[in-house]
């Protein structure tokens, strides 16, 4: 595909369906976007002790995030330099003081350097050397951490993590600031859901204010009937988070959609801070830790999904992080993590668990309809019924600011903003820049 052809797929108010359906484009995305951007790997709390590891996919590259003896976090390709075996099994575990390959027992220090091989005499006069990096585990080009959230880039150059995140950085800081101790930790397990659709469809949905009323009608209508017929008009917390999608047009129109360079954005929160006893106790803990003014500032940064393009989405209000791993042109794995705010009660954490069970679980009565419409998009796009995907809603009404663009309520500006980043990555300037 020539660069002119690629460029012609994205217009200011529409995109060609090929960006979602052409496997050759997926290949290019893995190279030019996932091979260059800062991609979320995992959280430092998942590897508390030296030797602890956690595996992740960065585009197509399996990597292992490991805590080194000196306390630093390394991110290495999960590949043995001997015959290529994946060194550790997918998931999490403890490597001990050294990585040891299951195949021929080559061993590596936790920063990936080859430490020893059996049958040393067989390597005399062969060109093999313990010190040659060719025989060590390869580290990824760049690793950076912010408040325990670890990102990596497979490219040697490009902006640093903080510049890259721009205004989305505040969502990560706010996530950790919400903890009275200023730190969060992964807790409560990880859910994995496979979606039969392109990864970009998921990202576009995160700040799509036009869909909740239509897509989620079945769940909020059912919740409302339960409230009316069984609960005498009282809405408990669990149904409140289902019902949120049923707000009227005027509500969605009033939200702010703030977009940043490199594809990031967020939408205003759709839930007000609850005022039950557990929430009030939490508020008191935050005030005790930070003072009333600072606590108020932290809680008033109340963002619904933040898009950290192209790999994850934190929901700071309920301490969730969804991580997006593209598998193929029409399959996307979503991993859902819950976090504990250090210094809060079990009861407060159980609210986080409850939210993930109800809204993010594969059995969610909310999310199933999202997953269904994503799949219908994927199937419909593959048809001959038309070539273009509309992003016209409030096109031409975006307000640029330094580092991004601002849109109102029901605008499709988050999608247009993502394709602005997409074009920049996929454009001619980036050809061949990805790490070899």
């Amino acid at each position, binding site marked *: 595909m020539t660069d002119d052809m690629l460029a012609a797929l994205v217009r200011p108010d529409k995109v060609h369906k090929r960006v979602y359906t052409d496997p050759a484009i997926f290949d290019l995305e893995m190279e030019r976007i996932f091979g260059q951007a800062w991609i979320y790997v995992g959280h430092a709390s998942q590897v508390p002790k030296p030797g602890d590891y956690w595996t992740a996919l960065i585009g197509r590259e399996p990597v292992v995030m490991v805590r080194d003896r000196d306390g630093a976090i390394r991110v290495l390709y999960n590949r043995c330099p001997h015959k290529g075996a994946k060194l550790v099994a997918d998931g999490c575990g403890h490597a001990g003081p050294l990585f040891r390959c299951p195949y021929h027992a080559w061993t590596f220090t936790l920063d990936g350097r080859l430490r020893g091989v059996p049958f040393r005499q067989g390597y005399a006069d062969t060109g093999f050397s313990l010190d040659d990096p060719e025989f060590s585990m390869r580290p990824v080009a760049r690793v950076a951490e912010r408040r325990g959230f670890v990102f990596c880039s497979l490219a040697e150059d490009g902006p640093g993590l903080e510049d890259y995140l721009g205004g989305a950085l505040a969502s990560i800081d706010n996530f950790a600031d919400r903890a009275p101790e200023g730190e969060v930790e992964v807790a409560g397990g990880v859910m994995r*859901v496979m979606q039969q659709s392109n990864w970009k469809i998921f990202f576009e949905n995160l700040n799509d204010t036009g869909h909740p009323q239509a897509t989620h009608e*079945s769940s909020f209508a059912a919740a409302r009937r*339960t409230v009316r017929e069984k609960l005498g008009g009282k809405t408990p917390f669990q149904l409140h988070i289902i019902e949120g999608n049923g707000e009227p047009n005027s509500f969605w129109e009033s939200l702010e959609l703030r977009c940043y360079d490199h594809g990031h954005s967020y939408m205003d929160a759709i839930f007000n801070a609850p005022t039950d006893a557990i929430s009030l106790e939490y508020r008191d803990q935050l005030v005790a830790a930070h003072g009333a003014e600072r606590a108020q500032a932290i809680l008033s940064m109340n963002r619904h999904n933040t898009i950290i393009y192209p790999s994850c989405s934190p929901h700071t209000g309920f301490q969730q992080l969804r991580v997006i791993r593209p598998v193929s042109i029409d399959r996307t794995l979503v991993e859902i993590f819950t976090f504990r705010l250090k210094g809060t009660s079990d009861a407060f954490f159980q609210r986080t668990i409850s939210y993930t069970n109800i809204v993010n679980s594969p059995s*969610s*009565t909310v999310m199933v*309809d999202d997953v269904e419409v994503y799949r219908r998009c994927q199937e419909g796009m593959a048809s001959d019924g038309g070539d273009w995907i509309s992003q016209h809603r409030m096109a031409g009404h975006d307000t640029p600011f330094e580092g991004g663009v601002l849109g109102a309520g029901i605008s499709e500006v988050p999608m247009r903003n993502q394709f602005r980043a997409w074009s920049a990555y996929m454009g001619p300037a980036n050809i061949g820049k990805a790490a070899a």
Partner: protein
Amino acid sequence: MIADPLLTHAAADYLFREAELLDGRRWEEWDALFAEDGMYWVPLRHDQQDPFNHASLFYEDAILRDVRRRRLEEKHAWSQQPVTRTAHIVGNVRIVAQDGAGLRVRSAFQITEWRQGRDQRQLAGHYTHDLVGAGPDDWRIALKRVDLINCDGIQDPYEVFL
């Protein structure tokens, strides 16, 4: 323990009847099997200790079960067009504990699940039913725990009760 064979037979019959209600999409009658504060739980990991400090695939009380069953009947439940069809097989039914208040029944299950236009899928695992009540006619479910063999794997969405 070796339970009274007639009681084991009655417990098995109870589970078969429950499976029939689920396969028939008779949600309201199914839900009526539960005690008032009965819980329906599908853990996310093997040997999960509790549903409070760890995420679950399902953890539903009467209110959440009510919302789920109503949603399945909603006209605009997009992911139920067409509906999910299931066939449950329940076997290896054993009473593993019994006291004055009720009994705990363990069983194995297989579910074949299908929606038109989608791949048919197989689900399997173990049920643990905590039944309360004086006798078979009176039994209500205090807790139904469903341990899927792939609970910690990569999932496609779940819509109906397992």
